[in-house]
């Protein structure tokens, strides 16, 4: 499909299209998949993708595009799918999203594109996420990658710190502008949270590797085992290694613990540690890999939290053979920030949900191994600062849940490593980097920041959105040399 050519009109009458029922994403059987790490969603077949694309009524003002954090031209992508031009659809997607196979799998579509779909008002929205995944997978499997061409070299170079979604999407945009781009990663594998955090059954490592390989083909350089702030500082990157701009996309990496007694008992993990051991270090394949993780077989596992990380951890524990895998959350299910699909999948897999339950203490045996978690029943009170109803303890309702493993997945906070070695980089009271929302510029000339290290823990797509904004702003800076700052940063 050539650029600029108007898309043909879907000949099926609107009323007919609206009668089509939303296609179903084929899934592995819950009993089978809860015993292995294979991907749960199997992907749409071609016929279903065509049917699903036909459902789109091509609104004049598409809400899906408005509600997409990176502004993917969804209406055009879906139209291209409808006419069977899957590679054209993939290329169209890549204009705004360099990691479609990933976002098609992990975006909370119900709050974004699909939330804005007008069909959702009366029935089910177009399955945009499933379609996105379909075309990205189709393109990869076809071997005919529609990689965009890079502009002529500008002679400028950009260092990107962190290879998570923000860093990767910025890299993809900047390399196309003709800049030299080098991504620094602290761990031994590229992908950040996409490889250490999100489990294989939700986002296979091969998919991430495929997207990273695409960036390599486009010319992006990667250097693993570099901790900026330790192995090299931002100033050294700019002065000694002559980078013209630096994009800090390090994520919110520090785990938050509960601060209750007993958190040093053996068997208590942060979700970061548990997931890193299992995902990045492949501890689930104990026969072949050396990194150990607690043997969950026939044990009771409790995960504390209500977000996607907690959901990933509890479903991972189940797959590692836990006798009981229980999610403990101090609010009610309605307040859980996890994606709806993850909650549905978790229920199908036999995860127990204990809502309105607050952890009070980790209880252990005389050798320091966890045996249980003392909890208290909660009820919902008045709304708090987040707008959600505040959980309040019910007096005298304490009880102990048996547990051999407790995994704390209640959030993360900023890692201070870069901030502490870059004195002129302004941070806020919670140690997040202060950066302009639109331009991602920081208080330090030539340094940009985006993703979780600015906003606090959020989603893959929001980090990617920040990466795109950063790329645009860095390109502007590198071509104009101008550095204007928002008032709060200039101070």
């Amino acid at each position, binding site marked *: 499909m050539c650029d600029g050519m108007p898309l043909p009109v879907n000949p099926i009458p609107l009323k007919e299209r609206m009668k089509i029922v939303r296609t179903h994403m084929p899934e592995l059987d819950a009993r089978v998949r809860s015993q292995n790490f294979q991907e749960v969603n199997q992907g749409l077949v071609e016929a279903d993708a065509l049917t699903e694309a036909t459902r789109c009524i091509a609104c004049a003002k598409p809400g899906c595009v408005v509600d997409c954090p990176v502004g993917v031209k969804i209406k055009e992508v879906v139209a291209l799918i409808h006419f069977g031009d899957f590679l054209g659809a993939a290329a169209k997607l890549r204009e705004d999203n360099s990691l479609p196979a990933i976002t098609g799998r992990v975006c909370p579509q119900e709050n974004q594109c699909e939330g804005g779909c007008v069909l959702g008002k009366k029935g089910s929205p177009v399955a945009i996420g499933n379609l996105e995944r379909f075309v990205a997978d189709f393109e990869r499997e076809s071997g005919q990658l529609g990689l965009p061409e890079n502009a002529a070299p500008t002679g400028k170079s950009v260092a990107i710190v962190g290879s998570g979604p923000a860093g990767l999407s910025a890299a993809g945009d900047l390399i196309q502008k003709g800049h030299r781009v080098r991504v620094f990663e*602290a*761990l*031994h594998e590229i992908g950040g949270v996409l490889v*250490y955090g999100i489990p294989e059954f939700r986002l296979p490592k091969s998919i991430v590797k495929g997207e990273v390989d695409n960036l390599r083909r486009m010319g992006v350089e990667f250097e*693993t*085992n*570099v*901790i900026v702030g*330790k*192995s*090299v500082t931002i100033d050294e990157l700019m002065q000694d290694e002559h980078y013209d701009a630096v994009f800090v996309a390090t994520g919110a*990496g*520090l*785990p938050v*613990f509960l601060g209750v007694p007993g*958190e*040093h008992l*053996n068997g208590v*993990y*942060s979700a*970061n*540690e548990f997931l*890193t*051991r299992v995902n990045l*270090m*492949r501890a689930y394949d104990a026969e*072949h*890999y*050396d*990194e*150990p993780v*607690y*043997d969950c077989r026939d044990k009771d596992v409790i995960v504390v939290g209500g977000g996607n990380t907690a959901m990933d951890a509890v479903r991972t524990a189940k797959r590692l053979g836990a006798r009981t895998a229980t999610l403990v959350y101090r609010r009610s299910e309605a307040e859980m920030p996890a994606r709806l699909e993850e909650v549905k999948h978790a229920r199908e897999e036999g995860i127990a949900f204990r809502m309105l339950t607050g952890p009070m203490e980790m209880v252990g045996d005389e*050798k*320091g191994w966890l045996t249980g978690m003392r909890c208290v029943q909660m009820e919902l009170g008045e709304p708090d600062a987040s707008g959600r109803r505040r959980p309040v303890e019910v007096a005298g309702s304490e009880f102990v849940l048996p547990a051999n493993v407790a995994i704390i997945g209640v959030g993360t906070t900023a*890692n201070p*490593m870069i901030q502490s070695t870059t004195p002129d980089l302004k941070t806020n009271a919670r140690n997040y980097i202060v950066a302009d929302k639109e331009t991602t510029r920081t208080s330090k000339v030539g340094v940009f920041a985006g993703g979780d290290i600015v906003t606090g823990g959020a989603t893959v797509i929001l980090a990617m959105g920040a990466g795109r904004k950063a790329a645009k702003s860095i390109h502007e800076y590198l071509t104009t040399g101008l550095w204007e700052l928002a008032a709060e940063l200039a101070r």
Partner: protein
Amino acid sequence: MYKIVEARSVGLNIKQFEIEAPRIAKKQKPGQFIILRLHEKGERIPLTIKCSNPAAGTVTIVVQGIGKTTSLLNCLETGDSILDIVGPLGKPSEIENYGTAVILAGSVGTAMALPTASALKQAGNHVVFIEGARNTEMVVFEDEVRAASSETYVMTDDGSYGEQGLVTKKLNELIAAGRKIDFVLAVGPVPMMRAVAQVTKPLGIKTMVSLNSIMVDGTGMCGGCRVLLGTQSKFACVDGPEFDASLVNFEVLMQRNTMYREKECASLKEFQEHKDEEVAELRAEMAAEEKHYV
């Protein structure tokens, strides 16, 4: 990949490796460590840096073969490579002119304490180095220790070399002789560090210990290395590895270090049974990686 430019045996089951790692060599300071991974299926383990040569771009580490990974590492020779090395990690030792500084190091801990001892001596301290080892075969770097200190004692558990007894025996003797001690650093097995803390805490002598908790990433991301200091939780990888000994809860440290004991033992046993195959497999992977890099 990180090339081993020199590998040599320095004691019973203890080997020293000089490895090409220019970024780390340039930044390393006494007290810091690295994390390495030998092959694609390997675990990440922390190891302290003995010294570095920024001009040559190399770092030197000393490894005692205790578990599977350290035993496999100790099978490597000059010219072999290590898949991943990251660092320098942790906070450097605090170097000040305290007056008289006593360093107590157990066996392979001597390598970790050496750069700090040198730096303390250079800062004007009278450095007393007490090196302890199980037996004569495990006494390492004696010449370097003597060069890095103003006063040197070697203690062996069995009396096969130097004086018989634990390092704390010598520390107690110095205290009993009325020596004024302004600073103590202990690096070694947890029971040894705890014993040192028990001696110095009642006397109010500022004492630091270098803690060896279990780690994964080494950047503060996982929290697996958390240690209890009084009622406060700290991460050994980013807040340490050196901590004020008077605050460290050594019982919790020992308990947490047993987390994977069973697996470690099983893994080591299996390695010992298939040692030659494991080493051959590792070298094959190295060769494949080498090709990949060209």
